[in-house]
């Protein structure tokens, strides 16, 4: 039962109060995009065994979507942050790097 802190309302919510939303920071490709870009947007997933950035909604709470950096192998949560960003905050990336020197980094 995962526990994630909602960055908006500060509730340390358990999984049952949340809804998972898949990989974060996907760039949308709409009309006019190439086949490759569109396929990548809809289907290609990093699915890492390790550090992962993902979407969660505080569904039974404030209703807001937020993003989390989490290890899919140990379930360690490095941090959560608001969804209104195209990439993870630099300080969070730095924190993860420090904890997981072998991590290849975001991208």
């Amino acid at each position: 039962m995962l526990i994630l802190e909602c960055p908006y309302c500060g509730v340390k919510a358990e999984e049952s109060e949340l809804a998972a939303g898949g990989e974060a920071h996907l760039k949308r490709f709409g009309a006019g995009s190439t086949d490759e870009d569109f396929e990548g947007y809809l289907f290609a997933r990093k699915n890492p065994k390790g550090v992962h950035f993902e979407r969660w909604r505080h569904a039974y709470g404030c209703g807001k979507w937020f993003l989390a950096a989490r290890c899919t192998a140990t379930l360690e949560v490095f941090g959560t942050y608001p969804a209104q960003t195209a990439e993870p905050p630099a300080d969070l990336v730095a924190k993860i790097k420090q904890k997981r020197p072998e991590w290849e980094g975001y991208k």
Partner: protein
Amino acid sequence: MKRYSVFAIAREAMRHHTGWERAWASPEPKANYDVIIIGAGGHGLATAYYLGKNFGITNVAVIEKGWLGGGNTGRNTTIIRSNYLQDPSAAIYDKALKLYENLSQDLNYNVMFSPRGLLMLAQTHHEVRGYLRTVHANNLQGVATEWIEPAKVKEIVPIINIDGPRYPVLGALWQRRGGTARHDAVAWGYARACSDMGMHILQKTEVTGVRQENGAVTGVETSRGFIGTKKLGIVVAGHSGQVAGMAGFRLPLEAVALQALVSEPIKPCMDVVVMANTVHGYMSQSDKGEMVIGGGTDSFNNFTQRGSFHHIEETLRALVETFPMISRLKMLRQWGGIVDMTGDRSPIISKTPLGNCFINCGWGTGGFKAIPGSGWAMAELMARGHAPLAAEFGLDRFREGRFIDESVAAGVAH
């Protein structure tokens, strides 16, 4: 290979069972093979087996990071059925079912295939219509299924509550040929047969890299050194993304945990497999007497193989509503399996960007029932470059939007 039979048992009984041979050998790797399969789960072993049996290709190694059959093959709820809606799915799952029907004899290993019948309950009008559609589709696919009325459901499953106040049973999709098999035995039986053909099953051997030249694989780096191969098959379920990453391509896959549990054993009370999709649960009774219960998948990426409680709770309350007698049984054990889900929840049996590298993955929650058919198709694809059973399951379908979507009938779980 010494054949298994009741006579062999009797003979061995007289000498304290000291004469039994190893079921499979534990050889040192060769420098080169014609084919390497990564992954000694059911699908990988079945692929190797049919490469040998159907195409005479026996210079094969099956490489396994842990112990054979130790992934989802040994963690699933052992349901076998082929009542799928879409033609490509029905074709491969029914091929698998037909192979299961003779698998014990084929492998000379009793996999305890038990065609006890499988019911999928319809508990909403929408489900009724979805299953009626499936019955019609199955009829044209050569898959015998029937629609049965609630009274018949009750007759087949006396412990069911068909008049639940919330979701009365409105009927069911009934596949008499569906059932279960002993999951471990499927892996062990294939392994023994592969080993008997001279194939190498290399357990506790981890692939750490895929070596390639000019767009083709030349071999794999492993914890036991480099091993060369002419063709490579990747059959590693939840870890497909990692191995594909070594080979330099990406897959439309996500790994999530599927929850399952068993109860303590009780005397026989349910002779069929029952799936109730509206309330998200399915249940059968093992030959030992345990109620084997499958639940939902967690909705986030997870590689831990641990059980969680969130979905177990949902599954159990639904099953208590459907089978009130289980309320006073006890959960004995719960666990999670890592399942690889594709964008349309149907599998991938496909060529890859590397000419001599093939992949079989994405079985999601439905892999066990497909093992023989999947191995059959994958072997043909690897041997011939084309397999009718695999034709629709290519990686290219995502780009084209050509989904094989099984959820359309009635939100059917695999």
